């Protein structure tokens, strides 16, 4: 039910966006987000519900990188 998949906004016509999933394009309503062409959005039941932001995720990414680095180092020892 709450499955939602990230895709890239490639075109906007009024409140409808064309969302690209690695070449497969579907339409989704954009009423719930202030999205621009080029943004990655999460689409749920035909509506974009949020714009993805790697900037906001910096802390999570840093933690993963720390764990990854530790795992790599461990593997080489």
């Amino acid at each position, binding site marked *: *039910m709450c499955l*939602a998949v990230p895709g890239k906004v490639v075109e906007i016509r009024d409140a409808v966006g064309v969302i690209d999933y690695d070449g497969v394009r579907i339409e989704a*309503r954009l009423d*719930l987000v202030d999205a621009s062409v080029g943004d990655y959005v999460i689409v749920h039941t035909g509506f974009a519900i*949020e714009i993805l932001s790697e900037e906001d995720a910096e802390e*999570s990414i840093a933690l*993963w990188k720390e764990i*990854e680095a530790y*795992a790599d180092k461990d593997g080489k020892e």
Partner: protein
Amino acid sequence: MQTKTERNNPAAIAELSRRIALLAEGRGHLTLMHVCGTHEHAIVSSGLRSFLPPSVSLVSGPGCPVCITPEEDIGRMIHLAEHGVTVTTFGDMVTIPTTQGSLADARARGADVRVVYGIAQSLAIAAQGTEVVHFGIGFETTVPTSSVALEARPDCFSILSVHRTIPPALAFLHEAGIAVDGFIDPGHVCSIIGTRPFEPLARRYKTPHVVAGFEPGDVLMAVYLLLVQIAEGRHDVENEYARAVRPEGNVIAQAHMERTFESVDAPWRALHDIPGSGLAIRRTYREHDALWRHRDLLSSFSWEPRHDDADCRCADMLVGACSPRDCPLFGSACTPDSPIGPCMVSIEGTCNIAYKYG
């Protein structure tokens, strides 16, 4: 944007698993609960539980909207369909059994029951002049899509709202005495409502929360972050899914919800009435509230509550008190082809997922 990076590096996953085992040592048995069918799917399909030590249980709470929709409301939709109204709903709701059969049975008898992927399809049917009632199921992720439909005030269109909200359900579980050491909060519900609604819960019940995304690595990271909080004696709300969840949530979506719905006490199938967990359509939009718009048709609706099969353990399943294999019906009398309880019907039901992936 890369949507999968370190989160599916096997070496990082193994390291995370090792850290989880270390943190869990000497802490007795720990029960962590998620409340999302999509989380359960990610956990089971990836074999994620095998990356956890035996002392850490990852259980599934009431996170399947189809499973918790009261039978009586499905009965109302069947009643409307059998009285000439076109009804639209999401896929797996069609086969949920009730004492009056399912929506699929009604369709077999000639009623116009249509499966839609989203509410925009229901609006398109109504735009052709067909009287449509859309079954408004789902948690906060889906609610704003219903709001957008209501605000368009479309002709020939109404919603029967059985929408429910997650934070009151978590409070209910605590009040019911369910022993949970930490919650994995549902990522896409939180994309809408943000992380803040969980803060009073974390404080009041002294339980850590981590909002998680839907890749197996996201869930494993959430388990790790919960165990760090437990080890440090903290009960905060942390956000593992910051790429899609802001603390304040999606304020545009929240404004749509606020304009169209108000909180009410509401029943959850197999559970009880949960205070403030339902969303009723505001009076301003009552022309598009199926309960008002079709009140004459619904005045002839009656409902005989049944006692669920005594052996069916869906009620326990929905509060994380048992797992599918604890149920005597699982896999024998109750299968996806011939389900007894809602947990086996929905593709997000814990039993259905367990059956599919063995």
